[in-house]
Structures are given as C-alpha cells and as structure tokens.
C-alpha cells in the first residue's frame, strides 16, 4: 500500500529528511545521501571565501534528485531570518525554507516569538515554511494557523544526540497538529528516529548523527531502516505498554 509523506501538496516516498552539514568529504556526503533514501535535504548559506571561491560540498547534491531545503541558521531574529530566506530563493532554490531563529549561539534553541513573526511574513511572500521550534504544542498550533507547511519540533538540543527528551510534548503536538510534524534535532540513533515515527510523527530530520558516525554511509542506511521500522509499526498498530507482566506462553498445566 502507498504511504507518502505529503508536504505543501507534494508527495515524498521517504520520511527521512537529511542534513548535509559536518561531512568530512563530498564523496561521503554523496554516498550517505544515496543510502539514506532521503528526497528532501537541508542546506545552509555562507559567504563565498574570496581566496577559494569554488569549493562547495554542495556539488554533491543533484537538485534534480533532491529537493533542496535551505535553512536560516545563524538568524537571531525575524528580520535576519527573512533576509536569509530571500537570499536562498535568489540562489535558485525553490521557495521552501527551514525557518530557524536562534538568538542564543550556545544552546541554539529557537525563539518562539521571532519564529512566528518570520513565519507570517514568509508565508505571505509565498514561501513553503517549515519552522524549527521548541516542543511547544501551543506555538505549533499558532504556526499552523499562520500557514506553515509543517512544524519541526526538537527532540533534544541540536547535535546533542539525546533522542526524544521532549516526548510528552511531542505526543500532544502530533495529536493536535493539522500539518505534518517533522521531528528535528537531537536524534542520535536509529532507535530515536523509530520512536518518533512510532509516536505518529510524519517524518524526521537527521544530520549530525549520520555525518559524524564512524561509517556515515552505513549509518544513513541504518537511519533509513529505523524510520521505516517506526512508521510501519505506527501503521500496524502498536499495543499499549503496561506495568503488569503477561505470559506469552500458556502456563504448562502438567507440572501442577
């Protein structure tokens, strides 16, 4: 049976979005992307280095195979985020934007107020907006009402690999959301990605855990399977956990 991820009316087979930061070589990035099965990949913006203008890992990413999703990383307020989004569009990307507003460079946590403000502006300008947010159910609802195409609540701080430390709030967000919930940040292992999908998330975004793995290509494949496992389990109907034990074997009568 077909089970596509639909964002802004566009269908994707893969529910694993992949980030392209921190890869050691272009080759590793290229092969990891291939192994992940990802169709949506995030990218960032940076100044060209004048003394070495031609370098760009990005040549590894074929825009005909992947939907490039530029982020606004580095933006500290709505104004900077909007500026980055426009630049990204001018770079020839489709008008999709991963909206990040992180005033504190230490914890890299998102600003709820500036994020909502920027989202309202970018939606009006015709962007398909995917905002990176704290696991805040009320904020998620407000962003949906503002017209974002999805919400991207964090599982734990970016790059921390701690998994779903915000599980309770994610469950509420998923229960209430009318747009796809894409869990972003903090997913450090395939089990974390699977858990997010089992909760009912529509997709996950992974970068650091793949890029810094001993073998990034094998790890990309592992995450792919983890996401599929979690999604299929969600669809197959998981039973509820319970405190009490329950025999899986009949208690053998003849010993009595």
């Amino acid at each position, binding site marked *: 049976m077909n089970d596509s991820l639909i964002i802004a009316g566009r269908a994707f087979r893969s529910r694993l979005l992949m980030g392209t930061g921190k890869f050691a070589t272009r080759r590793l990035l290229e092969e990891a992307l291939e192994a992940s099965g990802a169709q949506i990949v995030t990218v*960032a*913006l940076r100044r060209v280095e*004048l003394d070495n203008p031609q370098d760009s890992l*990005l040549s590894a990413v074929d825009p005909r195979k992947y939907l490039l999703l530029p982020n606004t990383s580095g933006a500290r307020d709505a104004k900077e985020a909007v500026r980055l989004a426009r630049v990204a569009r001018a770079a020839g990307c489709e008008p999709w934007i991963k909206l990040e507003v992180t005033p504190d460079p230490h914890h890299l946590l998102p600003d709820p107020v500036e994020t909502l403000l920027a989202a309202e502006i970018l939606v009006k300008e015709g962007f398909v907006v995917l905002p990176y947010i704290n696991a805040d159910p009320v904020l998620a609802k407000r962003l949906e009402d503002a017209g974002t195409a999805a919400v991207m609540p964090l599982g734990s701080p970016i790059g921390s690999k701690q998994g779903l430390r915000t599980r309770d709030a994610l469950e509420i967000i998923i229960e209430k959301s009318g747009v796809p919930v894409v869990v972003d940040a903090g997913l450090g292992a395939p089990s974390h990605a699977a858990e997010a999908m089992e909760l009912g998330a529509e997709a996950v975004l992974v970068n650091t855990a793949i890029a810094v793995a001993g073998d990034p290509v094998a790890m990309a494949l592992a995450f792919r399977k983890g996401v599929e496992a979690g999604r299929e389990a969600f669809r197959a109907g998981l039973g509820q956990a319970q405190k009490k034990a329950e025999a899986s074997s009949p208690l053998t009568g003849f010993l009595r």
Partner: protein
Amino acid sequence: MEITINGKKVEYSGPPWMANLMEFLGISSPPVVVERNLHIVPLRELEREPVEDGDSIEIVHLVGGG
C-alpha cells in the same frame, strides 16, 4: 575605488559593473547570490548592475547544513 566585499575592504579599479567585479574575483556566478547594499542582484542583471565606491557587497552560496 574601495568597496567592502563579504566584510573585507577591497581596492577595485576594473570596469564599474558587477559582472566585471565577479570576473575580477574569479567567481563563476551560479550558485552564488549577490547582495549589493542589502539588495539582492538577480544573476541575469549582473551586467547592468553598477559598482560604486563605498558599496557593501555580499557574495554568498549554499553549503552543507542541517
């Protein structure tokens, strides 16, 4: 003339058009984006976009990110 490119002061004496400046810098346009004094310059208009003394120019491109 002196212009600021990506935060660095640069002395430039070539033809006063953005396209020439790019060539001078050895940057083959796409996939770069050029901002002149905070306004984005569409790539197809680099020939027609002047470069003036004191300009602040940003030249950015896409890189790996999460």
